[in-house]
Every structure is written in structure tokens, then in C-alpha cells.
């Protein structure tokens, strides 16, 4: 049940326990307990809404920043990542294999603010060797959802 439950919730976190129980063919209490357990284990870490901010009047600029770091004795990546992810404007931090070490997603109101964050806060950290900033110009697909897709049924209305 766990895998199916998670894949339903990942697509629709607003679904009710009673409906989940029907879809999974389980009792409501079983589903509720399973969700509680998954929340406690931090398998389920939150319930978010996917918003296309471009369609609102709010100004938002998102940048992906490649960060190369240097490790010091007794200080792994986790410590540096923590220094970075504690900033609320940082939306995500991933440890990456390949040409750089950390991929940081930053969301701000303007280009200027992003530039300021990179030069004043990020680059000045002792462990940071270099950064490369990429601004996002347009989001096509996010969290598995194509943002501008219009659902249409192109099938014939009745077929055998």
C-alpha cells in the first residue's frame, strides 16, 4: 500500500482519507495510520501546492546556482549545505556529482537581490570556492507537471 499511497499523495495532497481508502481498497483507519507513520518517519515531509507564479502579478526571480566548495578537516558537505540552506530565500540544496558540488535554488524578488545574495552571502562563505548563477527564464515542467498543458480528450466518444 505504501508505494501506491505515496504516489497518489505526491500528485494530489488534498485528497481525503475516505477517498484514499476507496482507491486503495483499504480501511480508512489503516490509511490514516499509514500516513501518520510516514509523516513521523519524515517520508512525507510536507504538503505543497504547485503554483505557476508567472501567471500572477507577483515578481519572482529564480536562479539555479552551481557551487564548488572546499572541504576542511572534520567538516563534510553536510555542514556547508546547512550554512546555505538555513537562508529562507534558498528553496532547495542538492549535493551533486560531477563538475561542481552543490546545486542551490534561490528565489528572490529581483535580479539585483539574487546578485546581492550570491556576492554578499554565498561567495563569502569560507568553504565556497566559486559559484555559477543561472537564471530561470521560463518553467515548462515542474514536479512532473507540464505547466501549460491543456487536457483534451481526442478519442472518439463511443468505441467498442
Amino acid at each position, binding site marked *: 500500500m505504501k508505494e*501506491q499511497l505515496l*504516489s497518489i499523495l505526491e500528485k494530489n495532497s488534498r485528497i481525503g482519507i475516505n477517498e484514499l481508502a476507496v*482507491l*486503495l481498497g483499504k480501511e480508512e483507519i489503516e490509511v490514516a495510520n499509514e500516513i501518520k507513520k510516514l509523516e513521523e518517519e519524515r517520508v512525507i515531509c510536507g504538503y505543497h501546492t504547485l503554483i505557476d507564479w508567472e501567471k500572477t502579478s507577483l515578481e519572482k526571480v529564480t536562479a539555479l546556482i552551481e557551487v564548488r566548495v572546499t572541504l576542511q578537516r572534520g567538516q563534510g558537505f553536510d555542514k556547508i549545505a546547512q550554512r546555505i540552506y538555513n537562508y529562507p530565500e534558498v528553496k532547495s540544496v542538492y549535493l551533486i556529482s560531477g563538475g561542481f558540488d552543490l546545486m542551490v535554488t534561490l528565489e528572490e524578488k529581483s535580479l539585483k537581490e539574487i546578485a546581492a545574495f550570491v556576492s554578499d552571502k554565498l561567495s563569502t562563505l569560507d568553504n565556497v570556492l566559486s559559484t555559477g548563477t543561472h537564471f530561470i527564464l521560463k518553467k515548462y515542467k515542474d514536479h512532473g507537471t507540464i505547466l501549460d498543458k491543456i487536457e483534451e480528450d481526442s*478519442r*472518439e*466518444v*463511443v*468505441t*467498442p
Partner: protein
Amino acid sequence: MRDFLSERVKGIKPSGIRKFFDIVSEMKDAISLGVGEPDFETPWHIRDEGIYAFEKGKTFYTSNSGLLPLREEISKYIIRTQGVKYNPKTEILVTVGGSEAIDIGLRALLNNGDEVIIPQPSYVSYAPCSYLAGGKNVYINLKSENDFRLMPEELKNAITEKTKVLILPYPNNPTGAIMEKSDLEKIAKIIIDNDIFVISDEIYSELTFKGKHTSIVSFEGLKDRTLLINGFSKSYAMTGWRLGYCCGPEELIQQMTKIHQYAIMCAPTISQYAAVEALKNGEDDVKMMRESYNQRRRFLMNSFKKMNLECFEPYGAFYVFPCIKEFGMTSEEFATRFLQEEKVAAVPGTAFGDSGEGYLRISYAYSLEKLKISMERLEKFINKLRA
């Protein structure tokens, strides 16, 4: 002017679905639950392989039997799922959908007057294809109390000395019924005892929600007397690619290949390349779609239970087949009124044989959102009828 038309073809009744289709098409804002194909688009990696085949210039005929690499993948698939080995060179034919295999299979098997046993309700093409091939159709009216399975007694009673072919349509369209291993065991014995040939239409085999699908060919002695039909339409959501296949004894496949080569030449080349990818790397997609259908199936069964509408629990395909006898209307009347009054289209059971009278085929190849709205409307409709 003379009447140039064939008396034989004029003798075929037009499909009951067609009539209903015309009414639904006129109603622009109706929700249709009448579709017999997946709502998923073909998984992208399969489409991508099709595009790649185009780019590479794979725009020519293939061999009559189909691309050998595809037949090899089909062979592996049947070994994987049923533990039965078909020789890709001599015992497998790639066809234009499962439908072509039904047609040419019957043509290659039947002489005038041979009896063909067709359990109904079932897919619409068996009876006319058999009739066109000179077969005499003998129908078995499957019963709701048996969950629309074919019962050994029913089969025995239908057999005469002229019986040549049994059509075995499971998982079933329109009822959603399946035949489990224990059900097939008894049927297999009767088939051998009476020296009958089987056409097993297993196009919905991947959409089984209770254990894994068992094919009749997995029983001792049945491989030599069965034409196994399957395809890519339902399992990989590839209806528009028009690609199916059949496996059977070499002698039969040889005869079928003659008809196929004169009538068709070969199945669409691009589709065949895409299908190789489907069989090699499509298992996760099938699993995802199956889980999604299963959730919708449970949703519908739960809705029927809540509105107290009788429906046996189907474990296959993507149809449910609720009983509407309590309303004292024919299936066609019910479906027509439901469409006109609540703007939801479901196909009358009678489109799949007389024994579909009193039932409605509801397809759940639709999003949960659409199914929810439809069930609200169905509840409203039957409450009105019950009042």
C-alpha cells in the same frame, strides 16, 4: 441497375455501438463513459522510438510476418508471462491490431457450416467475422451469477459434432470478467476431450486486478489447438498504432500468413519498431496504468455500493457492467434516457449480444474527476427512477 452488394455482407447487422455513437456525437457537452480504449497517451519512450524509426528512414514494408526482432520479443514475453515457448520464425504473426487476427484466424479455420461457440456478452467482431468466414455461430449466454465466467456445463451443452472453434474472450470486454487458472482447468479438459480449437482473445491480459493473467495455452496440450491473440493497444495504450499479434500452431500461422500477405502485406512498420521498445522497456508503464485503472475500478464499485446498484465485481479490462434490471427498462432505453437527462453516455449491454440486456457497460478509461461527476449524475438519475 443490379444490386451489386454482397448478400452475405448485407446479412450482417450494423453494430449496436454505431447507433449509440450517432446520438452521443450530437450532444456536445455530454460526458462519455463509452470508450473502449485507454485514456493514457502512449508512453513517451515508445513514441520516441517511433519518431526515431521515422528519422532513420524505416518507411518500407517489413516481412509479411512482421519484424523478426519484434517476433522475438513477443516470444520472450509469452515465455516470461505464461511459460510457453513459441518459435518466433514460424509460430508468431504480427497483425493490424488483435482485430485482424480474429478475422483471419477464423477465415483460416472455418469451412462452411462449422460451428463456432461464442460466449456473450463479448466483443462485437467475433460473430460477424465468423459469419463472413462461413461459420455458424452458437452463442452461450454468460450469467451474472457466475460473474460472467464460462462454466464447464455451459460449454458442454453448446458442443455438437459440428463444433470446431471456441472463442475465449477473457479478460472480457464488456463485462470485465476474468477466468482464473482453476476456471480454465475444467474448460481445457472439455476442449481436449471434444477435439475443439480455441481462439483466445487476451488483448486485456495485462489489465488483470486479481493475481496474474493465466492463458489457456499454459495448460497441457492446449498450445497445439489454440490461437493466442494479443496486442499493444490496451496494455501499452497504443490503439492508434494498430498493432497486434497472434501465436499458434505453425500450420495455422502459415495459412493465416497467406491471407495476411494478400490482404494486408504487413503491419505498420513504424508501429512495429515502437512495439519492440514497448516490450523491452514498457513494464513500468504497464504497472503504472494498471494501478491507476485499479483505483478507478475500486472507486466505481464503491459508488455502486453506495447507491445500491447491483454489480458483480469485475477483475479485468477497464469496464464495469452494472445491472439495471430493477428499473424495468431495456438497456437501450436506460442508456438513452441517462444520456438525454444527465448527459452521460454509457453503452447498452445489448451492443455486445442479446445476453447483455439489462446491463450497462461503463468504461473507466477516464480520469477520476470525470468518473466522480458521472457517478453523481448516475446517482441522481437512479434516485429519480426509484422515486
